[in-house]
């Protein structure tokens, strides 16, 4: 499996949808060491919709997202945001990392974390003023965390921490929101709060992309799915791309019995 092959398999950036898509990925290959984590993947995110990235553990879901954001360096491939290179469009992207990737012992308060969403706007030295704090508090209120503003972040439950991260993304006032496993290990109330915020973002015309692991809620929450297992398996509206066949192709023998049962119920 050579690099040339990976590049050759990627399409050029002239095909349909690329100019208007909030996030278009072409021929993306990412490798940690010898084995590719993501191989020659194309993705065209639909504007104003909620898209779930789905696949088994280790299928490259988070890696795909991180490469799209420039956090990990791909071996090959291109990423375009609203038809332009990523670097020029960073201000239009908001990101919610995996909660487990953070040291929650860090000495900072909830309100300070939300204010980090404004750092781009504030630059290096501009003072944080009342107006900035007010906006940060409004973002906290949207996720129901306004009463926790002065808490140290380590004192929060997992679900509360996740909501604070979502509030920080809201403070970024972006056009596309990328979330990495926002529902992992959170309580039911938090899951409801997050999905309602995401749906309100969609109602405002924003684009939402979520790395998701719970197959049972896919049809309820999302408009589109993107199935991946190192390579792209399927992409499209839930009704077309989220089928028994595509799931079989993505998960193969790894789909546990419990998950199959869950799915049978979800798909009716």
């Amino acid at each position, binding site marked *: 499996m050579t690099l040339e092959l990976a590049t050759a398999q990627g399409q050029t950036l002239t095909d349909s949808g690329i100019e208007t898509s909030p996030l278009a990925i072409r021929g993306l290959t990412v490798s940690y060491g010898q084995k590719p984590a993501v191989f020659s993947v194309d993705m065209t995110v639909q504007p104003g919709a909620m898209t779930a990235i789905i696949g088994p553990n280790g299928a490259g879901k988070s890696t795909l997202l991180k490469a799209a954001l420039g956090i990990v360096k791909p071996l090959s491939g291109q990423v375009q945001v609203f038809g332009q290179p990523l670097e020029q469009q960073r201000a239009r992207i908001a990101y919610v990392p995996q909660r487990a990737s953070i040291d929650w012992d860090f000495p900072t308060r909830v309100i300070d974390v939300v204010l980090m969403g404004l750092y*781009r706007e504030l630059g*290096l030295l501009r003072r944080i003023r009342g107006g900035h704090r007010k906006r940060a508090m409004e973002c906290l209120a949207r996720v129901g965390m306004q009463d926790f503003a002065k808490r140290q972040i380590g004192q929060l439950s997992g679900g509360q921490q996740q909501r604070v991260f979502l509030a920080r993304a809201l403070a970024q006032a972006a056009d596309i929101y990328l979330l990495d496993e926002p529902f992992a290990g959170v309580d039911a109330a938090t899951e409801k709060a997050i999905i309602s915020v995401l749906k309100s973002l969609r109602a405002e015309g924003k684009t939402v992309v979520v790395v998701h692991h719970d197959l049972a809620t896919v049809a309820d929450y999302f408009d589109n799915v993107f199935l991946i297992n190192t390579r792209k398996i399927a992409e499209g509206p839930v009704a077309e791309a989220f089928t028994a066949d595509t799931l079989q192709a993505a998960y193969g023998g790894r789909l546990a019995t419990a998950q199959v049962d869950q799915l049978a119920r979800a798909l009716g």
Partner: protein
Amino acid sequence: MTGAEFVPLSLTPLLIGIFAAVACALPGNFLVLRRQALIGDAISHVVLPGIVVAFLITGTIATLPMMLGAAGAAILAVILIEAIRRLGRIEPGAAMGVVFTTMFAAGVLLLEQSDTSSVHLDVEHALYGNLESLIWLDATGWASLLDPQALGGLPPELPRMAVTLLAVLLFTLVLWRPLKLSTFDEGFARTMGIHTPALGLALVIVAAVAAVAAFDAVGSIIVIAMFICPPAAARMMTDRLETQVGWSVLFAVIAAVSGYVLAGYGPLWLGARDAVSAAGMIATMSGVILALAALFGPCRSRTGAPQQG
């Protein structure tokens, strides 16, 4: 003590001690939070062979060759650490431990084997520095601070350490937001357009500059202590980074002043005749402050720490 005694004998060593302590404590805050505190330790050890080699080549202990030697040794150490980490596939802490102990040992060996008797360069100097000897003999009292001729006789370590502190301070203030963000959440910092690998390298370089400058004036014991003790003690006083850095500066100053005074007078109070090493006592005081913060600080529990298991 009158100004006539204090200014020539104690003012300059005190100021140099304070500047060195604060210059190391500031980047130490970020190194401790990034779990990289050992880097300060590593740097202060690896510069020794660099300084000895620079002396053997040039035959003098002039500042520039010493600094170049120290910088060369630090770069060699970084390369060795990376090589061992990759070839041996081990964690960076272990690679650092191997490299800096080996290089320090090589430095001590070189020092013992070479003829350095003619100059002030020996193992003791490397460890404890020569804080007490950095006196200002041209001064006659407080009025000397306004006397250009007397100021010309200041020990060169003082302006050098002051400039280093200023540079560290500027770095910390100007890059405060990127430093804070990339220390807390590196992935998010990348998406904000911050080049986190370059920033991490810049932090290590700033720490290295502070370490080399302080090493020259006060020895490696203070450097090691000041990178870790004041920031670690400060972390237990507050849950805000801004406040933590403030505490760490205060602790560094307290350690420098109390250590210097205790080293000079403590033994006399206890009935002994000689003073003890100021650098050693400053490091000891920073350890005492850390112990007190660990026992009584208000923010000691690690609520948000990842579960071990």
